[in-house]
């Protein structure tokens, strides 16, 4: 039977490629949006007013304290009752972008706060404006601490994107779920699903580790 099912599985490969494309689309869009929003929130969290900081902090806590699946359900099922009808795909991208933004916000804020305060004082003393301080003094140095965990975060986003299959986004996991109804060899079908995720995530994990090693070397030399 294995041979027969294997051939069947090979014949539904195009279906899996479509799912792969969907996973890349959902997580790619969320990565871009999440990184931009996350940097803005992170900069505000590290240097904004006290009220702004605590609002962002409370929001990040709410998002980090609840499962992503519940967040997806809330956005997908509750927003329509507020008059905002969403298809599964935009709902998934919104939920995942928000999640990414919250985690990246913490990474960015941590990186900015790790820059010695003497740097900021020296920049102020040299008469740089707040924007120029951030652009030329703080961010370039903070980036060294931010980059490795940021890439590591990308891996988490790709993996979390599997959860949106629960609201019917046809990503790799959903394709696996649909295929296993037809080809009842769970190990084989989800083995293939796992391999497809592995192909995306493993290089990213190694890249993150590489960045971490590299950035540490640079900072110890200084």
């Amino acid at each position: 039977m294995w041979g027969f099912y294997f051939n069947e599985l090979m014949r539904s490969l195009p279906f899996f490629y479509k799912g792969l494309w969907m996973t890349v689309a959902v997580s790619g869009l969320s990565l871009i949006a999440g990184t931009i929003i996350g940097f803005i929130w992170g900069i505000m969290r590290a240097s904004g007013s006290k009220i702004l900081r605590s609002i962002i902090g409370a929001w990040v806590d709410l998002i980090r304290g609840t499962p992503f699946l519940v967040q997806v359900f809330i956005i997908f099922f509750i927003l329509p009752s507020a008059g905002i009808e969403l298809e599964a795909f935009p709902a998934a991208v919104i939920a995942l972008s928000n999640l990414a933004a919250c985690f990246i916000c913490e990474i960015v804020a941590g990186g900015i706060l790790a820059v010695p305060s003497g740097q900021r004082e020296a920049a102020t003393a040299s008469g740089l404006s707040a924007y120029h301080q951030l652009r030329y003094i703080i961010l370039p140095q903070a980036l060294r601490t931010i980059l490795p965990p940021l890439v590591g975060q990308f891996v988490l986003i790709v993996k979390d994107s599997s959860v949106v299959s629960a609201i019917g986004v046809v990503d790799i996991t959903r394709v696996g779920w649909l295929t296993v109804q037809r080809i009842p060899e769970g190990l084989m079908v989800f083995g293939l699903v796992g391999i497809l995720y592995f192909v995306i995530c493993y290089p990213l994990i190694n890249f993150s580790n590489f960045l971490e090693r590299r950035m540490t070397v640079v900072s110890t030399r200084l």
Partner: protein
Amino acid sequence: MLEDFNFRVILEYMPLYLQCFLATIWLSAASLLGAILVGTIACAMRLSQSRAISRIAGIYIESIRSTPLLAQLYFFYFGLPSLGLMLPEWVTGIIALTLNSGAYYAEIIRAGIQAIPFGQIEAGISSGLSYFQRMRFIILPQALGMTIRPMLGQAIVLVKDSSLLSLISIVELTRAGQLLTSDRFMPAEGFLTTAAFYLIIYYMLKGFSSWSEKRLIFREAH
């Protein structure tokens, strides 16, 4: 949006929620114990002198970390029956959660052990301590202090991950929200209550994390 938020229905479903709250807690606690055990074994194997054993643990850790939990869950859920293993859903769920978090615990424990300066191990060897004595009196007490925070962080992730078990129809907190949604068409009441219960666990673990860190640093200073 929430002007007709129905607290009466939440009160009516409260017994179900409390039951599901307990289910989430015991499912997570069982998986947590299993994961720490698996993680310790995998870490010991990873640090082993034998390259083959180290390689096996490495493959386990990397393949878990590069694939999403949901795919692993479906792998066991659909895969074990095709091997002739008919397990109840909750056993499958605990197996998947245990193996998933085990890989992360292995990495956390390894980071803790490797953070201990090699000079201390050498000092232990030259004082005539055996391997187990060094582990018991020098390495583990210090590693525990350093890893308690990431360990509790992973415990928070584990509790949130247990929400995915609702997708293989295990009755826990997220499932309670789904039941309220499908019985009464009240997704707002259902999922926001679910989220509130998860937040209770999150804030408790977070509070415990900062408390334990203070305590452990206090103890180390003496």
